[in-house]
């Protein structure tokens, strides 16, 4: 399908790599500068990897490729990520 899903779909794969929830983290798009919750990203999952795009400018913010025992993560599309650490 070439329509996108919402950013919450990132939570499963990235939850294996990050110790804290990524979907409530605020990411600043490196292309247009807009800050959005990662849960608001447009996520394309019908692909050889997961591609998240900025809701405002549609440029790629994050890409992840996961296979047995390995994951590749490209976050060049995010210039800054602010993560919430629970319990503090």
């Amino acid at each position, binding site marked *: 399908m070439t329509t*996108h*899903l*919402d950013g919450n779909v990132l939570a499963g794969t990235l939850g294996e790599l990050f*110790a804290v929830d990524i979907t*409530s983290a605020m990411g600043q798009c490196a292309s247009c500068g807009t800050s959005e919750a990662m849960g608001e990203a447009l996520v394309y999952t019908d692909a050889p990897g997961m591609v998240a795009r900025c809701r405002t400018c549609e440029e790629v913010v994050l890409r992840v490729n996961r296979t047995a025992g390995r994951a590749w993560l490209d976050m060049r599309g995010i210039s800054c990520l602010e993560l919430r*650490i*629970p319990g503090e």
Partner: protein
Amino acid sequence: MARAAVLGRLTWQVGTVAEILEETATARTIVLDVPGWPGHAAGQHVDVRLTAVDGYSTQRSYSIASAPGPGRLELTVQRLEDGEVSPYLTDTLRPGYPLELRGPIGGWFVWDPAEPGPVLLVAGGSGMVPLMSMIRARAAAGSEAPFRLVYSVRSPETVLYAAELERLSKTAHGFEMSYVYTRSGPPGVKVRIGRLTPVVLSAPGWTSKTAPAVFICGPTGFVEAAASLLVRAGHDQDAIKTERFGPSGG
């Protein structure tokens, strides 16, 4: 509150099916015992992974239907006609079977019972599942936050949690709901048949001025239509959280 605050990466766990409940002719709630389940927040989901004898495996996401809190985990699964995973979950699983899952997942499409503000829930078909977790969380916490549910279904036979929703409509203070029937309505009752409209989405005390937190869940087309109607009615885009199930509706 019951939120998974444990730091650490998500890993696969094995739960055991305790019970399978029939919700509709094609939907089942799977009740699971998951040892060491850390608890979850209303609106979160789990990923379920199935593996065949030859090692082939595939996974899907399912929203958690149960309220946060101790006890068993409940997932409601809608069987898709040509689905690869859903028919296994609704038709093949039996009590005692193992089910591999990871979660709870997601910190953004969640509702915290400590929040007192009004909440508008808009469900399309099986998009009702995570919103039911929020409704149950509200009841379990004794929250007085005003809740309104707009639930779009094809027909009365496809309504999930029908009896529970009816009971809540009658007895729960501050909870109200409306159905939207897109193909056929209850027998003997004159209702409008058709898709979501601005009229249904708004109600006395539930306009954009109320500024509710909005949660929309369902198939992609439904979510986009609902979000668009609400934004045009004046709701703040930032107050609207959406969870698209993809074209097939989960």
